[in-house]
């Protein structure tokens, strides 16, 4: 899961304060691992440096947490590119994929497009593995089967998610 992209995506719906950003992240994505404030600030400063966000305003008071961030044009493009790029099919991908889907829904992008793209990538990988399996010896077959079964599980998840996108969108945007 890419925290910078996630935070960027969260900013797409409107400028936010740092603490606000953390709370939104924790609420939507960080169920098991809440972000540290420090993580937010360091990420933000890196994004500032790369020109993907800008400081929209500073609230009166003390402390760095009073800065309000807004996403830049370049930032939007970056989020778009990230969402459109399929993840390399590998184990335990779901959290990233889930983040992507959620983010797409939050930013009113076409989430099914993301799932389909990912699905193609998975199947491409499966084809390669299937091919290798058919040409290889038993050891190859067993190794490939292991990978194939994991990919298949991912693909099933993709399918299930695709089938439930409507419901998910309802709960997320509520």
């Amino acid at each position, binding site marked *: 899961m890419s925290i910078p992209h996630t935070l960027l995506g969260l900013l797409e719906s409107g400028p936010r304060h740092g603490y606000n950003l953390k709370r939104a992240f924790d609420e939507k994505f960080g169920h098991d691992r809440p972000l540290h404030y420090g993580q937010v600030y360091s990420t933000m400063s890196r994004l500032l440096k790369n020109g993907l966000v800008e400081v929209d305003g500073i609230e009166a008071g003390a402390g760095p947490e009073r800065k309000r961030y807004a996403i830049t044009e370049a930032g939007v493009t970056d989020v778009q590119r990230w969402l459109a790029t399929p993840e390399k099919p590998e184990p335990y991908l779901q959290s990233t994929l889930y983040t992507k889907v959620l983010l797409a829904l939050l930013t009113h992008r076409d989430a099914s497009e993301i799932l389909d793209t990912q699905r*193609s*990538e*998975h*199947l491409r990988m*499966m084809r390669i593995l*299937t091919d290798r399996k058919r040409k290889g010896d038993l050891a190859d077959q067993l190794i490939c089967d292991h990978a194939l079964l994991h*990919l*298949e599980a991912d693909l*099933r998840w993709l399918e299930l998610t695709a089938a439930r996108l409507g419901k998910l969108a309802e709960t997320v945007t509520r």
Partner: protein
Amino acid sequence: MTPAGSLLVAHDLYKAYGPTNALDGAEFSIHPGEVVAIMGPSGSGKSTLLHCLAGIVTPDSGSILYNGHEMETMNDSQRSALRRSQFGFVFQFGQLVPELTCVENVALPLRLNGTSRKEAERTALAWMERLEVDDLKGKRPGEVSGGQGQRVAVARALVTGPRVLFADEPTGALDSLNGERVMGLLADAARSANTAVVLVTHETRVAAYSDREIVVRDGKSRDMERAV
């Protein structure tokens, strides 16, 4: 829209069964020798798409071109003849005639085309060897296992040297090991005979034997290669 060199192309297919739209503007194309998987949730219209492509079902509207011929202008017997000579079929189960022996089952399409019994059964046996079921020739379908039966069915589908093989959930009733064996033999045999395969399946590991994937949802098709 029509990719050059396509063997079988369908454009803008609509088909309704009662109030439900089984196909709602579906597209399809396949090249000679290509293996294309049609995937999608149950009830999405993938079997209907296959039936339309094979000329078993006539779509309400849309066009299907096989080798440059408009399918909708053919009458029923012409389409039957086309299926006999150019197409092969494998279904999930229940397709072998229970009274005939395996080799007679495999020889059946040839005999329907008028080949003599002896010759038909000789050719049939050659295909059964390729699918590693030649030892079952004298058995009846009731006496062989599911995987063996499906391989006999694949041999039967390929025995006429079809240009397109339609496979509707060919491994649907098999466990994964047997399913993959059937699928591997099917894909190998089809590729070596330059037979295109239209493969309807809901199993991704079976679909992984294809060259390309099309997903059908709510009667609409989506070509996954072009989507990337």
